[in-house]
């Protein structure tokens, strides 16, 4: 029994049930498949998280985002600037207590280099209802290429606990059709 010592002192030589061998084989192969599928998705998939990141002083990052917002601001929404950068440029988004700043207006089908970092504590970038979730650290500037594939207004919520105002931390990405496209 499982609560007593093995009957035979040398249990290593005992024959193994066939069903155990087959199941272990199936499980091993499935594990290998899942392992290689993650690698394969880097080649066949369109959704892979960028590995590009830089160390940054939080205050310096805040400055970069403010410069970016000032340069491309098109209007104001509830006191937050709405920023519409031209396609292909570097886009900056800041997580801080307690907002995602600024509101971004992007074009469908265009690719943007999105920079993500935090001013103070860790935050969780959570694009809804798409459901793309990325951790944001102060001191690390994460750079990825993002291509919106649908038009509409999308919420950004925070899903890393960041203090008492955590549940009020939101932001927005507006996606519009390509200019000139009918």
């Amino acid at each position: 029994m499982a609560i007593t010592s093995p009957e035979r002192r040398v249990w290593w030589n005992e024959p193994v049930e066939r069903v155990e061998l087959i199941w272990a084989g199936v499980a091993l192969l499935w594990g290998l498949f899942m392992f290689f599928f993650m690698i394969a998705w880097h080649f066949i998939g369109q959704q892979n998280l960028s590995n590009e990141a830089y160390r940054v002083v939080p205050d310096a990052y805040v400055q970069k985002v403010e410069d970016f917002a000032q340069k491309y601001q098109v209007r104001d929404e509830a006191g937050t600037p709405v920023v519409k950068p031209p396609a292909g440029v570097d886009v900056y988004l800041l997580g801080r207590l307690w907002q995602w700043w600024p509101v971004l207006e992007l074009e469908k089908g265009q690719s943007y280099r999105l920079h993500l970092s935090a001013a103070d504590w860790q935050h969780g970038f959570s694009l809804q209802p798409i459901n793309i979730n990325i951790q944001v650290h102060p001191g690390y500037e994460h750079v990825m290429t993002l291509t919106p594939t649908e038009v509409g207004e999308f919420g950004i919520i925070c899903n890393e606990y960041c203090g008492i105002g955590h549940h009020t931390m939101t932001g927005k990405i507006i996606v519009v059709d390509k200019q000139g496209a009918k």
Partner: protein
Amino acid sequence: MSTTYDGMASTIRDKTATFRLCQYTGLKVDVAAQRLIIANAVAAVVFLAIGGVMGLMVALTRWPAVHLLPAEWFYLILTAHGANVLLFWIIFFEIAILYFASAVLLNCRLVGPRLGWFAFLLMVAGGIAYNVAVFQGDSTVMFTSYPPMMAKPLFYISLIAFAVGALIGVGLFFATLAVARAEGTYEGSIPLVTFGALTAAIIAVFTLVTGAIILVPTFLWSVGLIREIDPLMYKLVWWAMGHSSQQINVSAHVAIWYAIGALVLGAKPLSEKVSRTAFFLYILFLQLASAHHLMAEPGISSEWKIVNTSYMMYLAVLGSMIHGLTVPGSIEAAQRRNGFNKGVFEWLRKAPWGNPAFAGMFLSLVMFGFIGGISGVVLGTEQLNLLMHNTLYVPGHFHGTVVAGTTLAFMAGTYLVLPLIFQREIIWPKLAKLQPYIFGAGAAGISMFMMGAGTLGAPRRHWDINFTDAVISFQHSPGVFLMMALNGISAILAALGGAIFVLVVVGTALFGKKIGPGHRLTFPLHVGARSVAKYGSDGTVKLPGTIVLVSIFFLAFVLYYFVNWKYLSDLWLFR
């Protein structure tokens, strides 16, 4: 060694310890070990009760129609809930398991019972101090306490004290194994259950030391002696403690599954070699799991993520999948030997479903595999993680492993500990019979409904998914609200099951009938529990029922895995 027997032949004394002979198992039980097992089990149940009430409050707050607690209290209670159940309930119980699997199963004295009491007191002090620190306010940093968010020094020091106490307990386990071997209290190899406990203990050393490596500098940071803790480095090291410690639970509750199968049904491992190899895979690969919490982080390469998140090509998952066959397989083989040999499933239909130890164990096995296991692999896939990172899917997953899996298994084990170690007959057996089903249904519900809400995007650790006070408003889909309501109802059910458990344990410990010689147990053990049973490969027994069960499991696994890749491929493009 001079051994003297007293008149009743039920107590044995030697130079170092006093033993009693168990009338049901024939095991020689060190009375000092028995006292420590009782103390640790009682402390575990107390923390379960405290943490469980907190969990109910959290779930009722997250049910938007109820929204029980104000925001400050919600975050504070959530911080306390995590440590009380995930650390204190589980590790106290695991220390009890370690003492049982070493001293009791090996017929040996427990080494250093005084040190064991010191460890116990240190752990109790750590547990109480943690709650004091959290309830003083200013330490609402969640269980994970990610920097740069800082708690009060007492918060960190209490966890360090608890970990040191636990480490001493683990040390006594190793020492007892060494003494048992030196004194020849058993023949050949240690039993499989002890082997599983040894696996848990080895992983425990890794995790507790890792915990010290990260919590000591974080404590020094909180008192101002260190200027900065890098948030990414903290997560890497903290989760080498935080996630790997969940593998202590897996090893421990798999050991409990085997133990209950043996005691209640006379089950023996299909083959020692396979079951032990599966445990050994845990030791080799489980500590890579820190990566599960770093899939969505900046500055870590995909190569590192893939190798680590998959436990090196899923070799630790392989261990769990093997147990997923060998545990029900050994039960089917035993039941067929017990005479339930008709058809594919008579062995399962006529299993002792009225015995809460068995019912809890089997529900734990099924739910750990189907809910906790499958969701864990999906969540731990590099790209799929971005669909679920930090959503409610994450607590959904780990309530499937730690509540439906570990906690239910430990509860099931308690129904054997009460008569065999406390030596009290279980009071309210009818209530006890129902308990695993009520708790199991609740645990399954909270796991699956939180996973559902997370799939729809609901964030974890969040007081208001209506975003009432947000400057830029956001509205979740109605499905999220339905899931949160169902989660709240399930939490009430789980809390009811938990309350019955606590009542039965406390009631039995205080008022249960003392078990004397010749007493017939309400929930009987298998006759084979008393004899020196046969072990090893069962030879000719066919296991069609188990094959059907694992086939259903495998199909569910593969389908669910690919469904999530389909979800992922519908997202915006990013690279």
